[in-house]
């Protein structure tokens, strides 16, 4: 996995309700922003396609380190944008809960963690492409690796503050116990970062218009290796 998904019963009822409320508020903001933009049928289908690829990709085990499952959430953020990407990760979480990959009650907290990956992935990629002038691979890698690192730390913070049901450990001891999975998730996040970097480079070569919107505000073309290879 590229990050841990909490299962039902891990958090107490109060925290389950709290994170559902936070997720609902964030999804509400995303829907309000889409309503303001008057999202087209095309954009909606594109985001749905992104979500379906995210779910389908998860069904494949990548034979690295004994088998990994990826979520591709930062990539969905890069391709679909923050608002539609937010709806896409909620839908991915709904489907995931249906098949046992993360619980129903903790969809709220899992969605908040995934939303952070979408938003961080989107804004870091955009910043690196438009302001730092990094190439697509480096931007995609940095966006996904940083997003997944931050989300792994977020998981530690969320669980440390909320505590695990039935555990008698305090916040500090709980956080201490979670550093191992945080380190593991960060390691896997680096692999997903590499994968995201390759995918955006590939998409940039084959169908650059898919990245047009996120790279639009570039004033000067960055030193993109892919572009040089194509002579453009």
């Amino acid at each position: 996995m590229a990050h841990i998904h909490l299962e039902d019963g891990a958090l107490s009822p109060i925290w389950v309700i709290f994170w559902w409320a936070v997720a609902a508020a964030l999804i509400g903001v995303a829907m309000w922003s889409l309503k303001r933009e008057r999202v087209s049928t095309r954009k909606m289908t594109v985001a749905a396609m992104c979500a379906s690829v995210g779910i389908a990709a998860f069904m494949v085990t990548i034979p690295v380190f004994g088998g990994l499952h990826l979520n591709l959430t930062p990539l969905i953020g890069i391709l679909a944008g923050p608002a539609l990407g937010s709806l896409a990760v909620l839908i991915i979480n709904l489907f995931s809960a249906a098949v046992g990959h993360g619980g129903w009650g903790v969809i709220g907290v899992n969605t908040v963690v995934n939303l952070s990956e979408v938003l961080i992935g989107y804004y870091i990629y955009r910043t690196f492409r438009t302001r730092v002038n990094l190439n697509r691979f480096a931007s995609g890698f940095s966006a996904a690796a940083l997003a997944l690192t931050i989300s792994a730390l977020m998981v530690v913070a969320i669980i440390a503050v909320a505590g695990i049901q039935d555990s008698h450990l305090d916040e500090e001891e709980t956080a201490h116990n979670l550093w191992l999975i945080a380190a593991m998730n960060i390691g896997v996040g680096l692999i997903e970062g590499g994968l995201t970097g390759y995918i955006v480079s590939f998409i940039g070569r084959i169908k650059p218009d898919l990245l047009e919107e996120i790279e639009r505000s570039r004033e000067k073309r960055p030193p993109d290796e892919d572009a040089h290879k194509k002579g453009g």
Partner: protein
Amino acid sequence: MTDTSRRSYTKHVPDIRLITHYAEKTDSIIHRVNPWTKAAMLFFIVALVTVVMDFLLLAVIYVFALGFYAAAKLPLKLLVGWYFLPLVFVLTLVIMFVFTEPGTEIARLTIGTLVIAVTDNGLILMAKLVVRALAVVTFSLAVFMTISYKHVVYIARRLMPGPLATMFLLTYRFLYVTSDEITDLLDAVHSKNGNMVRGMLKQTKMFAGIFAHAFIHAFDRADRVSKAMEARGFTGDFPIVERVSAPRPREIAVVGALTVFLVLALVSRYSGMEGG
């Protein structure tokens, strides 16, 4: 198609085609239960495993979920494989707690100056989380594998805001094509004698190519689909083919009983009556 699916590339995640096959083609007493009743029961199972703290009661909920799954004539052998990821998620989360949770030491290992001890409370914590997760996974799969697509459309339209329901249902429909696309690409890699066991860098590059193709084709398809939908007068709402009727009185009684259980569990937990 009754035991496994050719299209599935992992035993750990249920294949969408297999889920649909059981939902649309199989008949059982659970398939005939009203979808609203099953959705409500899922809500109560999730709420109960979150609220209940007693291990024995949690085990009873799990046995109930397993019985529900078996009554739906769903494959028990495959369910064992589908437990793998939920177990991995639970164990990676709580494995350290088994050693650090305060309690009576059950086993102790000393390696030089390092002492590792398993405590009773640590094991109970892990066991409870495993039972909770498996109860919900089992019940959720049973619900998902016994509700037909037309009823999913109706429930999604009733429960979710418009744009979210539309996106959810589009994703559901696209999932078959995109999962086929990815498995076709993996088939192509295998058929060209593409060895799946390589160095990390080569693996990453190969899978990046597969997923990138899937995304590019998905975007192309999205263009075609959206044009076709608009040409047919799509206004943003999925048509409802069949409404889900109201549950029968005896099903309402079951949901009522679950409500009572939940209220009792809440009272018991927050008035401090229940033991750990």
